[in-house]
């Protein structure tokens, strides 16, 4: 092996490990929904290439109200879907759309775009 091959191989392997760790390891950051004036737990989620925050924590037993703001135009993210709740909402670009979820039992509920490219998790505790 020549020197450049050794360098490329080492850098390549490090990049593979780095990318794997970056994308595949569990993400820890989560944001808690706060109880608003309505008595429901509320949180605003920005949709732009993903959901931020994408891990939302809410209390069990109280309704949850999520405000979605989509700041992009692609067709992929135009609908957000909560399959477990049989709820979905169309998100017109730039507008705030509120999705109302009933009080839920503790557990993890996924949400995503229609094609399953963007993912988020609602954690009910």
């Amino acid at each position, binding site marked *: 092996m020549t020197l450049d091959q050794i360098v490329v191989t080492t850098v390549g392997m490090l990049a593979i490990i780095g990318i794997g760790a970056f994308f595949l390891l569990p993400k820890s950051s989560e944001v808690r929904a706060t109880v608003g004036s309505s008595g429901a737990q509320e949180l605003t989620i920005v949709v732009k290439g*993903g959901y931020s925050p994408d891990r939302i924590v809410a209390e069990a037993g109280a309704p949850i109200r999520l405000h979605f703001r989509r700041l992009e*135009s692609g067709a992929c993210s135009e609908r957000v879907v909560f399959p477990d709740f049989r709820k979905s909402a169309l998100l017109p670009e730039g507008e705030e*759309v509120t999705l109302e979820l*009933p009080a839920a039992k503790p557990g993890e509920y996924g949400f995503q775009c229609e094609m399953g490219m963007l993912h988020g998790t609602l954690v009910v505790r």
Partner: protein
Amino acid sequence: MTARTTPNARPVVVDAVTDPASPASTREGEAPSENEREYRRLMRKWWFAAAIAAPTMVLSYPWLFPGLRELFPRGSAELRDLWIAMGVASLGVLAYSGSQFFSGLVQSITHRSATMHTLIAIGTGAAWLYSTVALAAPQLFPSEEFTDVYYDVTTVVVALVVLGMAMEIKAKGRTSEAIRKLIGLRPRTARVIRDGVETEVPVDDVRVEELVVVRPGERIPVDGVIVAGASAIDESMITGESIPVDKAVGAEVIGGTMNTHGSFTARVTHVGEQTALANIVRLVQEAQATKVPIQRIVDQVSRFFTPIVVMLAIFGFVVWYDLGPAPAFAYATIVMVTTLIIACPCALGMATPMSLTTGVGKAAEHGVLIRSGEALQGAQRLDTIVLDKTGTITKGQPALTDVVALGDLPQDELLRLAASAERGSEHPLGQAVVAGALGKGLRLSEATSFEATTGGGIAATIDGHGVRIGNERFMLESGIGLGGAPGPWVALAEDGKTPMYVGIDGKIAGLVAVADTIKDDSVRAIKRLRALGLEVAMLTGDNRRTASAIARQIGIDRVLAEVRPGDKVAEIRKLQAEGRRVGMVGDGTNDAPALTAANVGFAIGTGTDVAIEAADVTLIGGSLRGVVLAIEISKATMRNVYQNLFGAFIYNTLGLPIALGLLYPFTGILLSPLLAAAAMSFSSVTVITNASRLRGFRPKEALA
């Protein structure tokens, strides 16, 4: 689960998204226009990219073309200048046509989740960077062969992927066509009677209990009950029933259906979100938001898919750099770019949602509401269908079937006297006799006396004749000899009918028989179910003899007779214990527990009540035909889903190794990144096109 608002909550937009009445969902109706804008934007990007890609493709290899070869010889300053111009132009393509890929890349880093955009951005970006470095600093490369440029890869890939995205939007719009059709059924105005005057008002202003007037050829604005007039109503758009239904005073009419020739006045029962149409739209949208269970597995795969592709691409680069032929760096770059570009996570992600949306929508067009992806996947795997007899196979209302005259009285006179006597009776069997007589155009008389004996029969005086109708014991207690009457009685009973003796002036005069009549299309639907390979069983509280008689008439081989209402669930469980996957068809209220217990519960809808909680599938039209349709559609949809998944899976498992150059050592074939881009765009368009093929679903001939 349903939405719930806290008592003092502000009105919330989203409950409204599903309601065609609200502004939010007008937006749903206008969604095509937002899609249209996005489509146009993508098409502009495509034309720009294509306009630059075409000359770039030619000018990247000028030595292949006579004429150009002389103008731009290899290694000349002219060629270098040309390539610099191309580099600038393709940077423009990346910045304009490919902007979404790069913002996607940035976001995928902030979100730590990779998407298709990530792959395309890295792929096209790497090709551009390689070319630009080769051009700007050729001295970094060991030999001249390294310094070819790949701006064609950059521009062509961007152009093709953008074109694919535009076509996707077009095709996607078509899959949700059914919902748009349903929303479009709602008229904008209604003619209501206010202060005695017919006034045309916006449909949102119509209130419950108001009277609406519907003229010939008009669409019925809201749900109601006819209070005056009559008409035949075309309900095909809601129930899938192709023949217009005759409706008179007291009949329910459904908003959105079409009045044919008559005109009538209806009292409004539901408006806005409460109407059957709004409920149907909501249920279809809810169903489209669910997942086919198999997609959950696919989602797990696709979450890891994209990062793994990036890792594979780097791995490919390293292997080609270390082991590949010279110029190793160029080959390694091309292999990496090709790998990134050929992978199509979108095809995986879209495989089932597109089919589900189309299938559920198609079912709704035929009056069948499939409530979730689970119901859809469940329905196509059923092997046994249990039909509740009353109200499912039969109309649930007894009707007069036979009149047997045994004495001197002619049949019509016997029926006339019996019906006149039954007029005083509140028993459904008695009312069936009355209805039967009126249906024959007989004029009934007033009874001068009337007496009913519970569980026995009735005695009445009609036109001076003493008329008695009842069972054997009642007749004998009244001192009437039965003579030869028990013969026909037994024959009628064996046919599953309910015969009653009629005695007139102390002598047996004949028999009348009533039976629950079988719905017109039950027999045909049962035949179709069996043709689909399902075993059909009938569930009833009737005694075994009556039940068997009916089962014979309609071609059912398995009879679950003498089942008390509370035992229906146990019967379903028993069948399931035999290893069967059972679909139960019944009404939404009495049979709710059995519907829930079954693998798939089909509820027979009645009029405007479509939101039946216990049901996995609601048959709005009330006909068994809907069960056949639901199963046929779910089979067609799941076949479509499997085709899509299989296609997406095969595509990626074949495409990735080829892109990585696995064929190269054996055949010398290395996939061009341009072909990879074409294949990738084509594969996701194929998935959607295949799903929208379901739109062409037609129920089988026999059912039309």
